[in-house]
């Protein structure tokens, strides 16, 4: 997980000069992919019928997740980061999952049922 010193973007290697043109090309390509992803998201929302609106929502969120992954991996350099950062993010994910689980407990709330039943 540690940074690779032969990385083309030269991240985390200030003693090594960066290949500026190559880095810019990479960033522009990722930017283009993000624009393409945005267009696809709009297209899926308005033009594609998957038979169930929930499938359309799921597909839209999947595309958004791919876009977010590109930003995180390339722009935020998570494709070659130090271990400490991954550990921090791992704990974030655990806490985030725990928070979502707490929200899910709302479905087990017995008061809601008795409120609606006569």
């Amino acid at each position: 997980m540690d940074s690779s010193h032969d990385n083309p973007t030269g991240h985390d290697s200030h003693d090594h000069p960066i290949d500026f043109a190559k880095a810019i090309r990479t960033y522009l390509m990722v930017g283009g992919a993000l624009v393409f992803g945005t267009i696809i998201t709009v297209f899926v929302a308005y033009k594609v019928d998957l038979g169930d609106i929930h499938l359309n929502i799921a597909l839209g969120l999947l595309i958004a997740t791919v876009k977010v992954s590109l930003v995180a991996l390339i722009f935020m350099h998570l494709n070659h980061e130090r271990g400490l950062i991954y550990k921090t993010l791992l704990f974030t994910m655990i806490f985030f999952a725990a928070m979502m689980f707490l929200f899910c407990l709302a479905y087990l709330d017995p008061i809601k049922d008795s409120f609606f039943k006569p």
Partner: protein
Amino acid sequence: MEIPYTVNARPDTGLYNAKVGIWLFLASEVMLFGGLFSSYVFLRIGADFPWPFHELKVKPGFINTLVLIASSVSVVAAWAAVKARRYGWFQFNMIFTLCCALGFMGIKGYEYFHKFQHYSFEFTDGSVINGHPIHADEKNHGDRIVFGEVKSIVIDLRNSNLEFLEQRREKKGELPYAMPASGDLKFKSPSGKEVVLSKGWLKAQKRKWLDVAGELSRTVTAYEIEKAANKGNDEALAAINAKLDEANKVAIEKAKVEDLTQSLKLDVVGEPLLFLVKESNVAKYGQAELSFKDSTVLQGKLETDAIEFNADLIDLRKNKDAEKALVWKYYPDLKDDFLRHRDEKSDEFKKKYPKRAGTADADPDNLRESLRFEFEVALPEEHAHKLLHDHSMAVSLPRSEKRFYSNFTPALSPYYAIYFLMTGLHGLHVIGGAIVLGWFLITGKKMYRENPEHLANRVEVGGLFWHFVDLVWIFLFPLYYLM
């Protein structure tokens, strides 16, 4: 004091300190936005009303997404430029990023402005019309409550602030409501004094009232202490009680002469007054009295509380029977158009989505297409334009038939509440990020000369925050604009 490890990596972490710091901060930001996203999901799943999806205009959101993507590319390019020791490119990319931030906030401001100008009126039977009230001017009262024939005003000395005076109008000849009246407002107080109502007068009156009350309180306390000291001495206690009664009498007399009572009724001298009152300022009103939230009461006559409204949409998704909706009382000519539109759209939907045809009557997409009657889409352009902008085409909606009335603000629905909360919070992040990146641009030259790696690290940290802002928007855009 020198901050350690701003340039070189700390041996145990392998990272410079600011980078550890920004990632910890971003972790907390994930929790913040994660909580809000999950709130959105649960609001949407539990919504007992038609969830307003596909209602925001996609174009501004789409453009803003492209703007943020472009800024993400430029901010990482700015970092690469410093690493490659190309300061000119760094400056160019940072300026471009800041322009994107400005553009993003400009588009967001445009969206917000239009939302604040747009209103929704829901009838008691669930029919909804959107549009805007006529602006209150010389000829129209718009969505103001018209309260006239005001001969008395009851001021609450503790709470009143006299801001209601700004809502006073004059009724003149052909123009029913002239602009806010200027000049002194004269009243007669209970003691017979002539009072010119102003904030200065109210302040002085409050002070006098507090002085008299304070003086009486001090006197009573002193006599109570005296009474405690003379416990058992009936003669002395009787004398003290007499003094207490006298002090009370003096205070009451002074209050009467100076009109120092919490609830002070003032009678209008001259012509009765007219007010065009904002509903948001009103606590309650009836045919003969109107109470403001600051406890001031107008005594007069309710002339009208109807809202003069130009519409751009009729939405009958909440009605049990669209044909009997209350809205047709006000738009009888549009009923046939609506029914035709409903049937056409429903047939279109079934043909377009054959898999969903069996459940089309409960399908939110079908209901939105067939029961949301957008004038701009369903009517000839000129007709739709007149319905929205021509005052003669405005309808007068009585508040007695109102279930809810608001502009498109967080008050309108849980959807708009969470929309404004999340996009507003995201906008604040954009502003914060832009300020930090702008600071790096302004002060970067000196640092670049002294230690370019230090500047590169700073730009990287600022850039990481900026990418996170972009990342949040990548989820916000589809959730709010597309789904």
